[in-house]
């Protein structure tokens, strides 16, 4: 079922490629009329607030952080009019980070166990945004010369995320206060959770791109997820909150 959804979405994303081609040359000779196709790379910065999932514990806390990740993908832009179009993308995002959770269990008046875990993870997402894109073409002056083919784009739309791969290790520190005997037990590499992020997610993006010169472009976007992206076993929950900045190239 999961993979069917991916396949259908991918097909839908690229359905409109079956059009007549026009006067393009080079790489663009394969691209139908009314389309732009290109590739993008980005660095993504995650800054979500992570909350704890107490489970059966009496008290819980959580925090998390991701390192700057990277992404690479392709986009297709279909012109609905001179200034408006639909842009779909297929991007792979690599991300890594850690979750730190703390859970306390007051078993009775004599025994309290607190369990602190650090889950280090790395993960690859495939993401499919479907943007409504507004675009303005203009000719700015650069170093005293007119510079043709500069375009500013503003895009907004939903984004589907699919967690293709996850790798994780769990380090655990357990403090046991039992009958006035306090013990701290540490197990780095205690176990592996496998998937840390949920397979499917959905959210919305808002962004800008600017074609600087000859198809080269810079872009920036903000993505907000609508669903908790961590699996329950992590003891944490968070919505995607991510900024992406990158470069791209429109095939000409």
């Amino acid at each position: 079922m999961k993979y069917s959804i991916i396949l259908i979405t991918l097909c839908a994303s690229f359905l409109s490629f079956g059009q007549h081609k026009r006067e393009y040359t080079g790489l663009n000779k394969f691209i139908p009329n009314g389309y732009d196709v290109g590739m993008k790379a980005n660095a993504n910065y995650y800054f979500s607030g992570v909350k704890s999932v107490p489970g059966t514990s009496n008290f819980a806390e959580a925090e998390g952080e991701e390192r700057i990740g990277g992404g690479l993908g392709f986009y297709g832009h279909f012109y609905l009019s001179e200034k408006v179009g639909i842009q779909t993308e297929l991007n792979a995002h690599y991300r890594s980070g850690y979750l730190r959770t703390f859970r306390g269990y007051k078993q009775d008046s004599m025994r309290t166990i607190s369990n602190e875990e650090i889950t280090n993870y790395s993960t690859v997402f495939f993401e499919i945004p479907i943007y409504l894109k507004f675009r303005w073409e203009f000719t700015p002056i650069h170093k005293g010369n007119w510079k043709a083919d500069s375009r500013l784009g503003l895009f907004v739309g939903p984004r589907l995320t699919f967690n293709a791969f996850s790798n994780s290790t769990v380090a655990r520190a357990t403090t046991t206060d039992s009958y006035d005997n306090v013990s701290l037990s540490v197990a780095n590499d205690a176990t592996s959770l496998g998937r840390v992020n949920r397979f499917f997610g959905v959210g919305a993006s808002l962004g800008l791109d600017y074609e600087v010169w000859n198809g080269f472009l810079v872009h920036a976007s903000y993505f907000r997820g609508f669903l908790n992206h961590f699996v329950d076993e992590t003891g944490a929950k968070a919505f995607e909150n991510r900024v992406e900045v990158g470069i791209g190239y429109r095939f000409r």
Partner: protein
Amino acid sequence: MKSIHIFAALFMGSLLFSSCEKQVFSTGNESDFIEVPEKNSSLIYHFSSTTSANSGSVGYDQFTDYLDLYDSAHVLVTLTEGNVGNANNDTIFAANSAAYGVLSTSTFLTNFGSGVATQISMQEGAPVVVNAAYELELTPTKIIVNTTTEFFKDNVGDEFFLTPYIVVDSLVADQTGHPDGPATNHRKVVTEVARLKNYPVRYLGYSIASGEVYAGQRFNLKFEAERSSDWIDPEQISVALILTKKDASGNITYVNANTNH
């Protein structure tokens, strides 16, 4: 083009941050733990009475045979009813015979069930969930038992208990039915349960864990017991650490046992 190159360099540079070191806990403040073997052992209880002829004859010989066969790898103790000197053995005998429905002596239970070889085989083949180990400190009047308990499997929902029985070997006391009579050498007698300072005594185990427990979780408990002036030889004194849990119906089931062989 120059600006593009600069931007590309910045982008590639940002990816380098992705390879930061992973986060771990410092082991500097970790408690000192006794090494706990990841193995299952069986527990053989001999319910015996000093006034039972059966206990002094067939039962005594059978327990001696079991010691020869199994003592190097398993935990064998005698729960004795009757006077074996300055010991709390009657209370422990009564608690266990009531808990496991033992109505006569001599009776043998292995892992709280019957059939020695079958029970040992089943226990050896079972996954190791938890085990415990101990070190003894002996003073002329005290037996101090430092223990470490370690879980080897995650567990949710069960309540686990640890029973630290003080076991004294070769206690000389009267035994009906034994040819040595008042000079009978009683083997591996449970004389007392070690206690937690400031907490009530539990003859069938102290609750040690419930709720969520994780593989690798370890903790220390320090117990104490009075040392009788009759137990002179330190080699006589050992501890049987017995791990049990409550099943869904509230019955106590056997989990593991360990001693210093």
